[in-house]
């Protein structure tokens, strides 16, 4: 009996492939602190979770500097970018009351550069005794049917929802345009940033005035490196007692989450977005 090297190679390849595949599609889950709303809360019931990333190595810092020079716009390249760190939230709402009720879930958070707080923005916008207006980074559409007593509703705030929210957060934090015709606040919160008329995106490097149409256009798609959210905050608005449980799911393409004892914690200090006060 003679066993050719080809057969051995085939077996070895199969085994190696199986083990290598263990690194693909490997999200990490972080349980957020469960929180409860009493009903009619002011301020809204909230809970948050901050993801822990490692600091970049010297080589990685040099690469960020090189990228900044290559991009040509005068702003830092984020260490935790949206296209390499993908965030998703899975949540479950439980109606703790004895009556049918609905709810609104809102997602805010912070990147390494900017932080957005719906509650503070609502307070700034509130005029007199009017009900507060909430403009979250990521609004969640409530379920079509009201939750029965003791009933639950599970949902997912998807990666593409976060991608839009992260773009809006960066526009508000670093590229805020106070233009009266296309203001970043609250234009980016009310409109999708990747479809015309690109409301509020006037100062974002990807966008500019098209010389032929004289309108805002996406002239350089992909030029801006958008920071990912590293802090995720949930707020629950409801008229009856409800509980929210949630998990944050992260796909970390380049292994930037902190998990080695030898690495140090990345500790940015994002600037809180200040909404213009109500007139």
């Amino acid at each position, binding site marked *: *009996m003679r*066993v050719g090297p080809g*057969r051995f190679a085939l*077996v070895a390849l*199969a*085994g190696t492939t*199986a*083990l290598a*595949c*263990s690194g*693909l*599609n*490997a*999200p*990490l*889950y*972080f*349980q957020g602190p469960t929180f409860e709303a009493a009903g009619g809360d002011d301020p809204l019931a909230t809970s948050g979770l901050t993801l822990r990333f490692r600091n970049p190595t010297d080589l990685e810092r040099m690469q960020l500097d090189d990228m900044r020079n290559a991009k040509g716009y005068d702003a830092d390249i984020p260490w935790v970018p949206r296209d390499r760190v993908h965030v998703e939230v*899975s*949540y*479950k709402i439980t109606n703790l009351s004895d009556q049918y009720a609905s709810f609104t879930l809102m997602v805010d958070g912070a990147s390494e550069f900017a932080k957005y707080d719906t509650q503070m923005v609502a307070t700034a916008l509130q005029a007199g005794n009017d009900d507060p207006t909430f403009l979250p980074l990521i609004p969640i559409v409530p379920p079509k049917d009201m939750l029965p007593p003791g009933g*639950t509703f*599970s949902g997912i705030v998807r990666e593409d929802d976060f991608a839009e929210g992260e773009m809006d957060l960066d526009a508000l934090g670093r590229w805020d345009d106070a233009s009266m015709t296309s203001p970043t606040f609250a234009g980016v919160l009310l409109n999708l940033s990747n479809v015309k008329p690109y409301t509020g995106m006037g100062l974002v490097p990807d966008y500019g005035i098209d010389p032929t149409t004289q309108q805002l256009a996406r002239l350089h798609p992909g030029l801006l490196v958008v920071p990912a959210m590293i802090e995720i905050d949930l707020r629950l608005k409801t008229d009856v007692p409800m509980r929210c*449980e*949630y*998990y944050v*799911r992260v796909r970390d393409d380049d292994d930037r989450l902190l998990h080695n004892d030898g690495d140090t914690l990345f500790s940015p200090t994002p600037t809180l977005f200040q909404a213009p006060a109500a007139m």
Partner: protein
Amino acid sequence: MAAALATSWIFGGATARAQVTSEPSAVVFPDPEKFAHGLYTEGEFGGLKFLGRAGDELGLGFAVGARIGYDLTRFISVGVHVMGSTHQSQGDTPIAGQLLQMYQGTLEAKLTLRWVQWSLFAEGGFGAARMSTNLLYARGLARYRTGLTTGGGGGLDYHFLSRHFSVGLRGAYYVLGDVTASQNVTTTIYLRYTF
């Protein structure tokens, strides 16, 4: 006429008796001695179900595996086994419906009892199991994604008339040492090639 009868009587019976020298042995077909033995490989697929705490969190999954081994004798063999399976998280939790893969690698020893083309076998081994995500950690069941595993099982093998190929059905039970109060059972069918 008399001479012809005499010749027939004398030579006819005597010739026939002279050809039988002993009782013929029973023919065994196919002869198991002609089956290849030594280095072998197996490919398998089937299902894997978690038991215990992990069984509450993860559903039944599809499993594929491969094995390479060596028959030390007709009855004893040793081998290396790798298996991957994919599962969906379940239950009344926010992360129900998420996918998770488990990869197991074990060193095994196997005892075989053969009867012509059929054989029964029992096997056992130990190794490591690795989860593709930290989902069980998030659910409070495991501190690490990789842990030790040990267990065993058995099955039935049928050898084709080919010298090299056989197929079989096997079941196994493994304890997941680093997942709280959890085990898994697998049932697979396999194709074996002995070089």
